[in-house]
């Protein structure tokens, strides 16, 4: 039993049964779907949240502050449990009040919702910081030219803030991909849970966890390449500061 070769049975990773590779890959696809959906949902929340925090009235601003404070002070795992059980329940209650009736928020939608709410708070903070980093003079100059507030936003604030926001936003994407693993705790069939099931059924724990690690790492590294390209484009015409 102590023979090292007996620990590794590569056949277990084959893509078609009896190998578990196909199961792992389907979990990987589920993870990516939730990460993309949750990130996009979070970004939409973040844009709203950042605008609310910067330009909203005092009450809206305080409510936004509560949202970001709670998400930043409570572990993601706890938030995910709370949102998964209570959040979807609450949403159904609200929909019930409007007479739409209950919806079935299971599987993918619940995962996206949960990751999105957490990501929303993070991107609110990133975007708020980025918008504040835009030199006030540029915005004042645009106003002086008689641009409407909407035009100021689309022509000056948004393009000028992007270089400041992209490093943070790309970090958030990497975090979103890793946070999907936490959904394993609520029994969601993403990569980490699939890995654990495969490992439990075959007793090859080390092999499957390493394989899943490689998949996550590959996702991170591929994302890194794209992030660099995007960053270079966003920073064009930007004075390099040291």
């Amino acid at each position, binding site marked *: 039993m102590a023979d090292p070769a007996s620990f590794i049975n590569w056949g277990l990773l084959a893509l078609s049964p009896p190998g578990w590779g196909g199961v792992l890959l389907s979990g990987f696809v589920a993870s990516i779907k939730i990460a993309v959906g949750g990130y996009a949902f979070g970004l939409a929340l973040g844009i709203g949240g950042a605008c609310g925090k910067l330009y909203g009235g005092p009450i809206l601003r305080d409510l936004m502050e509560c949202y970001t404070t709670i998400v930043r002070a409570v572990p993601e795992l706890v938030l995910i449990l709370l949102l998964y059980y209570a959040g979807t329940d609450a949403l159904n209650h609200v929909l019930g009040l409007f007479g739409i009736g209950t*919806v079935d928020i299971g599987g993918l*939608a619940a995962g996206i919702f949960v990751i999105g709410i957490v990501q929303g708070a993070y991107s609110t903070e990133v975007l708020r910081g980025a918008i504040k980093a835009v030199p006030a003079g540029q915005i004042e100059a645009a106003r002086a030219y008689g641009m409407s507030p909407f035009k100021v936003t689309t022509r000056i604030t948004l393009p000028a803030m992007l270089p400041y926001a992209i490093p943070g936003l790309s970090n958030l994407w990497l975090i979103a991909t890793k946070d999907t693993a936490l959904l394993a705790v609520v029994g969601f069939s993403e990569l980490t849970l699939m890995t654990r099931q495969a490992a*439990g059924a075959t007793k090859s724990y080390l092999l499957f966890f390493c394989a899943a690690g490689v998949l996550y790492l590959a996702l991170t590294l591929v994302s890194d390449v794209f992030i660099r390209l995007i960053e270079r484009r966003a920073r064009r015409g930007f004075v390099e500061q040291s």
Partner: protein
Amino acid sequence: MKKTLNTIALTFALCIAAAGVASAEQVKVGFAAEPYPPFTSPDASGNWEGWEVEFQKAVCAEAKLDCVITPVAWDGIIPALTSKKIDMIIGSMSITEERLKTIDFSDKYYNTPTGVIGPKGEAFEATPEGIKGKTIGVQVSTVHQDYANKYFGENGATVKEYQTQDEANNDLAAGRIDAVQADAIALDAFLKSDQGKECCEMKGNVKDDPAILGAGVGIGIRKGEDDLKAKLNAAIKAIRENGSYETFSKKYFDFDIYGG
């Protein structure tokens, strides 16, 4: 910008609508998303197989329900039922007084004694005296957790609680704990596996305590759903009588799992 937002809103509305339509007639059957042979275990193509999967298919066919199997985390399976994420539990859940306070059950569909396993070559009995000073593993939110805490935990044993049965078995094989208490049928399946054959053996069944260990395993449903309950009870009775219960049970067991 505005267009994008509209698109996003529209997509969300569509998603919700689609989800609503799809769920109109389906009954979601929840069970623990973990290997629990011989009742439920994942196979290499991502499907679930085992005795309980076949039982569920037979019952749903008999009761004319459109069932979808929905794996959820075991420790949240009752909240998942009460918050309508699933509609019934077919997951080896024993009918106990404690659970009946929160949910309802159909009639029992199988019964199992409770056993304790331990490493080979270490002789001890499945009694409070035998387990004294040892670490015994159980799965959380099971009848075994309650039993082990009452009979072993309060008599000088350490009770270690695991999220899944599989983890408890694995830690026993790894020598991290000295014993595992669980359903004897599930433990038997573990002892027949390669890992179990090598390390462990049955130490015996524990003394019964029906108040804790319950009276058999039933289908968990929400309170007040009496129509569903009646349908399920009729279906269980029917498959017992028409022989299909026996047919698929034979593939897994050489005795009648329904019990007396």
